[in-house]
């Protein structure tokens, strides 16, 4: 009998645990359709960045105003357009188009920069038809005077504010850099998160040695990177009352299987799909069925969390000691 792949994420029934993560893939609805055809059970659209909107808006303003009303022969230098679409309109339109073209749930993603921005844009995403909203909460706390408590408070306030503004399910995507990840996870859920997306994978700056410039270095993920979400999903499974989504480092069916065993409700992919296209998703989908079948699992539900920290015989293997052992074995070799 073919194993059953259904899973539940954010209270939404999904046909399998394979979800397209927030990435440039989501900008192209045709590409999303191909993903759906290849087996994707849901998709997260790329993030709407409030900061980008503000930047675009001021940039358009700046170039249109520069040199204008200054010189009698040329009171302006660029034509006024019917629309500049510096606001969220194009994103809202993308939600609408994705909803129309797809039968799988469409999850909108939001990165705000002001308290009002988070709630106002979240409401607009909901009104545009998003099945759920993923809050992409990210800021670097670079101010030495800002305490970790204050930083955490900002996260929680955002989640609480958005929760009170929208009714659709809410996922919160965070990075791992909290002193107490488990505590933070629980407080995020208490603040209103229906699910946690672990973890945000930030682009890290690099240095161009020839030009002596700091440059953004976009590197796609590899399977190695799934260890971090794997550990935390295993630890958090059963300890927080929320869906868990694994993202970062999901590249094949084996990665998916590991994360499901650890306790993920869904696994999200971007790098593998950017690199290999929708064909890879089909391979993973087929591979997952084959793996489940081979290992005689009846369903995804059956295996989910079976190797969480609570489910394994040696729970401390997910904790710090594990790292120590690995290091020790490496040295002996």
């Amino acid at each position, binding site marked *: 009998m073919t194993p059953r792949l259904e899973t539940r994420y954010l209270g939404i029934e999904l046909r399998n645990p394979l979800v397209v993560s927030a990435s440039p893939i989501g900008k192209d609805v045709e590409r999303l359709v191909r993903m759906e055809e290849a087996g994707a059970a849901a998709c997260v659209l790329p993030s709407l960045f409030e900061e980008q909107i503000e930047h675009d808006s001021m940039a358009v303003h700046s170039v249109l105003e520069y040199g204008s*009303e*200054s010189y009698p022969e040329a009171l302006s230098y660029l034509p006024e357009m019917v629309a*500049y679409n510096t606001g969220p309109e194009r994103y809202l339109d993308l939600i609408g188009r994705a909803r129309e073209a797809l039968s799988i749930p469409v999850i909108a993603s939001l990165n705000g920069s002001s308290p009002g921005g988070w709630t106002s844009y979240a409401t607009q995403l909901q009104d545009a038809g998003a099945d759920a909203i993923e809050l992409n909460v990210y800021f670097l706390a670079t101010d030495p005077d800002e305490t970790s408590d204050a930083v955490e408070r900002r996260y929680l306030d955002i989640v609480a504010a958005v929760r009170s503004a929208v009714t659709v399910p809410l996922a919160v995507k965070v990075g791992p850099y909290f002193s107490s990840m488990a505590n933070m996870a629980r407080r995020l859920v208490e603040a209103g998160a229906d699910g946690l997306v672990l973890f945000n994978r930030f682009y890290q700056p690099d240095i161009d040695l020839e030009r002596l410039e700091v440059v953004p270095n976009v590197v796609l993920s590899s399977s190695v990177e799934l260890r971090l979400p794997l550990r935390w999903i295993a630890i958090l499974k059963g300890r927080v009352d929320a869906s868990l989504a694994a993202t970062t480092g999901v590249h094949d069916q084996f990665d998916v299987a590991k994360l499901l065993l650890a306790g993920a409700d869904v696994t999200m992919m971007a790098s593998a799909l950017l690199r290999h296209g929708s064909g890879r998703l089909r391979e993973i989908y087929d591979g997952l069925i084959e793996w489940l079948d081979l290992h005689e699992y009846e369903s995804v539900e059956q295996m989910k969390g079976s190797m969480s920290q609570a489910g394994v015989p040696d729970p401390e293997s997910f904790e710090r000691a594990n790292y120590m052992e690995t290091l020790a074995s490496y040295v002996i070799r």
Partner: protein
Amino acid sequence: MTRPVVTVDGNEAAAYVAHRLSEVISIYPITPASPMGELADAWSSIGKPNLWGTTPTVIEMQSEAGAAGAVHGALQAGALTTTFTASQGLLLMLPNMFKIAGELTAAVIHVAARTVATHALSIFGDHGDVMAARTTGFAMLASASPQEAQDLAAIAHAATLRSRVPFLHFFDGFRTSHEIAKIERLTDDDLAAMIDPEAIAAHRRRAMDPEHPVLRGTAQNPDVFFQAREAANPFYDGVAGHVEDAMEELASLTGRRYRLFDYVGHAKAERVVVLMGSGVGAAAEAIEALVAAGEKVGLLIVRLYRPFDTAAFLDVLPETTRVVAVLDRTKEPGATGEPLFGDVVITLADAAASGRTMPRVIGGRYGLSSKEFTPAMVKAVLDEAGKESPRPRFTVGILDDVTGLSLSVDDSFRPSTLGVIGALFYGLGSDGTVGANKNTVKIVGESTPLHAQGFFVYDSKKSGGSTVSHLRFSPTAINSTYLIANASFVGVHQFDLLEKMEVLDRAADGATLLLNSPYPLDTVWVHIPIEVQRQIIDKHLRLFIVDATQVAMDAGLGRRVNTVLQTCFFALSGLLPVDEAIEKIKASIAKTYGKRGEAVLDRNFAAVDAALAALFEVKVPTEVSGDARMRLPVPVEAPAFVQSVTAEIIAGRGDLLPVSALPVDGTFPTATSQWEKRSIAFEIPIWDPSICIDCARCALVCPHAAIRIKYVDESTLVGAPDWVLTAGTKGKDFPDKRLIVQVAPDDCTGCSICVDVCPARSKEEVKHKSINMEPKEAHLAAERQRFDYFLSLPEIDRREVEVASLKGSQALRPLFEFSLACSGCGETPYLKLLSQLFGDRLMVANATGCSSIYGGNLPTTPWAVDGNGRGPTWSNSLFEDNAEFGLGMRLAVDIRGDVARAALRGLGGVLGDELVTGLIEADQSSEAGLADQRARVAAARERLEAVDSPEARATLPMLDSLIRKSVWIVGGDGWAYDIGFGGLDHVLATGRDVNVLVLDTEVYSNTGGQASKATPRAAVAKFAAGGKATGKKDLGMIAMAYGNVYVAQIAMGANMTQTVKAFAEAEAYPGPSLIIAYSPCIAHGYDLGEQMSHQKEATASGYWELYRFDPRMGQAEEHPFKLDSRASSMSFAEFARKEARFSMLAGANPDHAEELMRAAQEDIDERRRFYEQLAGLERGLPGEEVPT
């Protein structure tokens, strides 16, 4: 019926009607008519229909001649057709206008009347252009205000269809075209009622159609031409009646009554002024005041100028008139009088012949090139008319101390304008003052019962230019068509302007002065120049200050202080309750900027909300104090002409210069920009010699020649003050010299391009380069001292320098310096380089455009001279003829050389055979050769001067012709690709030794960014708001097709060495040369401070390929085409996304943008393949594998 009340300028008023009543609109940009075409294009691009539900087709042509041709054709084929133009544009339309009129074709041309270029170009208003069109057979209708520009536009369209005679509808450039006023808009019902559908049907029936063919445009012989010409007479006889009918219909619809000639004033007037155009407003005010004072005077307003209806004229002119004073806003040198004067004389003479009493008729000129025309001047004219023997011909508005024609004007005559609030605002173009004031006029005009008027005065500087806004508000209609002389409110939006401009000359006693002040309440007074303090005290002004810059900065708006000061104006003026004013300001901000995004609105709203809390009243002291003084316009050491003329223009007192002060033929000295120290930068580049690598790039790229380099001998520096900075040289060029890199602190515009290109970085802190932008005030005194010292150091001997190299070229003094181009201009670095390479023997023919404005717009010119007094000699003819103009120079240079050499051959006895041979056979291909020839010329001059013979005297003036000249034809892409292309093509084909430099900004930059054939596919520009759908013309390839033309395509930022090489090769090539230089412009929509880096990307993406085509190489059996840029390493999209001209379309219409971007990438790929093949690089067809 209630009609919408709108606040628009004259251009928009006329264009609205033209667009509603046309099907084909054929256009070409020209100031001040460009906005009419732009509006029509903008309306059509969003599908706005005409009265009959069709969206008019708007097409931009290559010239006004082309636009007129297309108009003619569209009319022949039956479309309702219009166009807009001015000045030279109208002159280019003349041939077609004769045709259109000769064929009795209904059409309207709307003209924002502008001065025709004579001794100088002027973009401002007078009737020189329309008067040149009066023989075409077009009917001519004159509007005097924005309301009339709309109403008479409708009358013109109605009357032309009924009469079949085409109409030229005109109004005064700038004074009416750019004046914003509250007008009542005609509705579609009004327009429909005025346009006769049967007349349209008849227009269609006359059109060409193979279903009922006709022949039109025949050639006729002496037997019938004359009679045929007369056959049209009845149609002209009928025009006045049709115009009267249309005027009557408009009156019945709107209550606004116009007549062919209107009269205002005393019913039994003895002295009557006759004029047309915007001067009517000032004249009417004067007449009203004088009649009220008991004088028997009147004003006759001409509306239908052609055909001139003498009966209607006589009908309105009081029989009691003893003297008629006719005012013409044009000059017809050598004529018995100006045109309107002549018409009036003939009319009255004919009437006198029939028994009417002939009054005395006097005629005068006024208002040329928008010269101010006031009620006081009208009174002066009437006073003259009242004299026993009035001057028969005169001028008014100037002081003519040469021919004594000018009338004295008593400026104290100011008709009462009770209830009118006059407000003046002094600002910078960059602070947004004018934009906010336009909104203020709209707010008051559209949301209160008050009438509102806005007129804006700009200077001609493209960077750091100042603006003066003249706003009037009144419970009654405003007819004051002149500047405010008695303002009850003065806003000074930049504190620095207090020391540069006379900002309080026009302030009324007791007026309110609002200052944007960086100084607080307790110290601001002593920072105000004493001269200004004195005026504040004497005129009993109330003084308010606000630190608008800080408020704007806090709100995230940078230095755009406009909305802050606008809010303060409303609070102080009391035009509206403050809360209501703030609400309306925010609504206008939302309307103006709403499409750009919420952040823009939020920041402006924040600035408005914070404004009043920062507004304070200063208790004006009773005495002046402190030591602040107004600045002298030029330093005291400036030459006499600069002191007496240039300085007065700089100081804003040019109107007061008498005729005798000005050159008779438009010839001015060069090297004057050095005296106009504008000091407009907030930050200037500061040199750190400790890490300088002596690359000279900063100097090469500086658009304003404000970064200078000198290589000096150690010995020269002995005893130099310790604050003089020098560095050791690097490389082989100047091993024994010291390097000095110096900023001209008062001439720098702060564009920061020099910093962008500086490759030297500190090892300790990467952000620190060898050149760094730093706050000017902290460095000004020291850098002024250093710059003066720098100038005192000797220039390098050109023979010591490898001129045709990057470093060598920059060791030479620029002879193009401190231009008034935009900060960071992409064109001027090329001109500066040109001036360094060949400046001391350079002749420039400059096409009209940006380069003719920053190169030759008074008061100063950047073209300079070297220590020997030699330097570029420069002239601008027209826009369309520049290649031919430059060729003419070449022909003259050649023939003068031939004549001189012929003369020398007969002077061997005087000069010696060796000197004669040397002079005739001189090799002047190097700096040494040139120096030797100059020495020979000097020797010959000395010897000839010593011989008093006719031959010697005749030969002396020819000697300079023996020095090799470098003739350069310079212009922008609008000239080279469009309007002047035919001429350019011909000049290149002649094979003559001319050099053409095309400063390719890919749009008409000077008129505000209209598309040219150089505009690339996918870019938005005016007239291509939907993204240009066709590719850029490959001008270089067209020129190469001749085989004997040197062609180079360059981009300074992409390859500086190739740029310098191309100039040197082009100049050395003994035939025609063409350089196409990539010139970033603010119309590209990005920070020009980064333009040089961005030019690298232009080339790396294949968007702008670099190449040189040298026919000599072909003769040497090498590939003449050398592709200097490598295969692309980035996509076009990556390059384009940094420029608003490309990215705006992606925002507005992403699908279309993507399609165009894809096509643009294909253009690039295909062009690269083609160029590689030309260059002989081994390449195959697309997709084909090529064996390596």
